Structure formats: structure tokens, C-alpha cells
């Protein structure tokens, strides 16, 4: 028995969505860190 294409696509889609959300969160975090660091420097 091999996994169906449908099941593989479903897993890939789930992982892609989670990865996209994590990347978006990371972008926000790096932006916030940058602002915080600039605040500390001044």
C-alpha cells in the first residue's frame, strides 16, 4: 500500500501553511527587534 497522491498533497499543504505563518511571524519579530535595538542606541 502506498500513500495516495491526495494524502501527500494534503500533508504538503498543511506544512506549507504552517511554514508561511511562521515566516510571517519571524518577519514581524525581526522588525520589532530592529525597532527595539534602535531605541536602545539613541
Amino acid at each position, binding site marked *: 500500500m502506498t500513500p495516495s497522491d491526495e494524502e*501527500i498533497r494534503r500533508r504538503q499543504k498543511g*506544512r506549507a501553511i504552517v511554514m508561511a505563518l511562521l515566516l510571517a511571524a519571524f518577519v514581524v*519579530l525581526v522588525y520589532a527587534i530592529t525597532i527595539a535595538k534602535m531605541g536602545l542606541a539613541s
Partner: protein
Amino acid sequence: MTTAAIEAPATALPADWRDFLALTKPRVMTLVVFTGLCGMLVAPVPIHPVLGFTAILCIALGAGAAAALNMWYEADIDALMKRTRSRPIPAGRMAPEAALQFGVGLSFFSVLLMGVATNWFAAAILAVSILFYVLVYTVWLKRRTPQNIVIGGAAGAFPPLIGWAAVTGDVATLPVLLFALIFLWTPPHFWALSLFVRSDYANAGVPMLPVVAGAKATRIQIMLYTLPMAVAAVAPWPLGLTGALYGIAASVLSFAFLALSLAVLMNRATEPAGMKPEKRLFAFSILYLFAVFGALVTDKWLVV
């Protein structure tokens, strides 16, 4: 033949993202985040909330990375024990290489982000703590000595040190005492559990103290670690590092811990049914750690 039949399709299917989350042992992370946060909050200077959040995030991610690498290395023994058989790798839901790559990637990510957001000294301690847990504990000592849990405790004791270092860029007496407290707390906490939970560690060839040395030796060892643990917990007060609120709270809590350890020492039962003192000590040990760290932060923020 049966193994090949089970494993081939399972590894062909990409692992579900929830299984990657399971690799990080999210429940263990609670204590790590809490003690790391307390270490950060008792540091002498404040930290920018965003940077503080990032530091705690890095500690959590580092702990998750170490847990994933631990599960990658221990998949063989996890497959032999009931409690761990359903973890992603032994259950065949994830290819071992995927866990290894995830763990290594997350380790680098957490250490680099810590260095960029706070300082490289905190990042270095984080890196040491991950390497210590994976190499010294998991690979080297866990399968070789019944004192394995003592070494594992050292890995779990790093978070308050890292939290403090993220703020100040160095370490001082207080975070070192907090390190010592968690380090000495782990053996009584874990051995109390291993006395009354009939685990199949023996089947997997892991030398757990009650299995190797017996219940009596384990109870003596619990007492032997509780005494210095209580000293480490109370020490910040006479050293002038905290106020009386912490000192009194730590003294009362440590005294209760000692009393419960004494009850364990007196117990002669060898069957889990007669191990009420062990169950009480285990339950109290969790409350104890949260309460002592909570008292530390309260003392610093409410009294001073």
C-alpha cells in the same frame, strides 16, 4: 520483512507538521520557559520587552531542538517502551533524518537569534546547554550510568542562567544558585517518580537507579540530594541577594520538601501500591519549584 512492510510507506509520506511539534516536547517546555523568565526578571537591570520575549523564545526553541535531537538518537529505545512507543519516529510517522535535520536547524536558529537579539554570551550558554543535553546526557551517559538523571538535571538547570545572561551579558552568584537549585532538585523529583511508576526502562537497557540499585538505595540518594538542594534554595537570603519574603518562603517550602523526603526514606514498600510518600513527594516537588521561583520574582518586584 514485517518492519520493511511497515516502514516503507510511512517514510514515503511527508510527516505531518504536528509531529514536528511533538518532537519538541511542548510540555517539558513549560518549566523551561518559566524558570528562564524568572532568571530574566530577577536580573538587576530591566530588558526591553521585545528583546526579553525573543530571549525566552530562543530558550524555548533551543529546548525544543534538544528534545528533537534526543528523540532522533533514542528512537531505538523509545520503540521498546510503552510510554514512548507512539512518538513520531518509532511509530513510523516520520523519517529519522527529518527529525535530525529539524533538530540541527532549530538549534542553529535559536542560538543565532539569541546572539543577534541579546548578546553572544547568552547565545553561547544556550549552545552549551543544547550540546550538553544531546551529547553528554543523551549520547554519552544516559545508557551508561544510573546517575544519568543527575546529568540530565544539569541540562534542565540552564534556563535561569540564560535568562539572566540575556539581560546582563554575564553570570552572577544568584543565577548560579538557581542553576544549583534545579540541578539538585531533579534527582529527588525524578527518582520519586521512577520508584512508583513501573517503567520498562530495564527492557530498553537504560540503567535507572531503582532498577539497578534497588528502592532502598534510591531513597537514600533522594535524601542526599534534598539536603544540598534546600541549602541552595535558602542561600540567596543570608547572602543578601534577596529579601526576607523569599527567605521565609524558601525556608518553609524546603522544610516541607525535607519532611516529605524523610517520609520516603522511612518507607519500606517495594510495590507501587505502598508508595504514597513517593507520590506525595513527586507531586510536591513540581509545586515546590514553581513556588520558589515565584517567590523569588515576587520578592524582587513587590518588596524592593
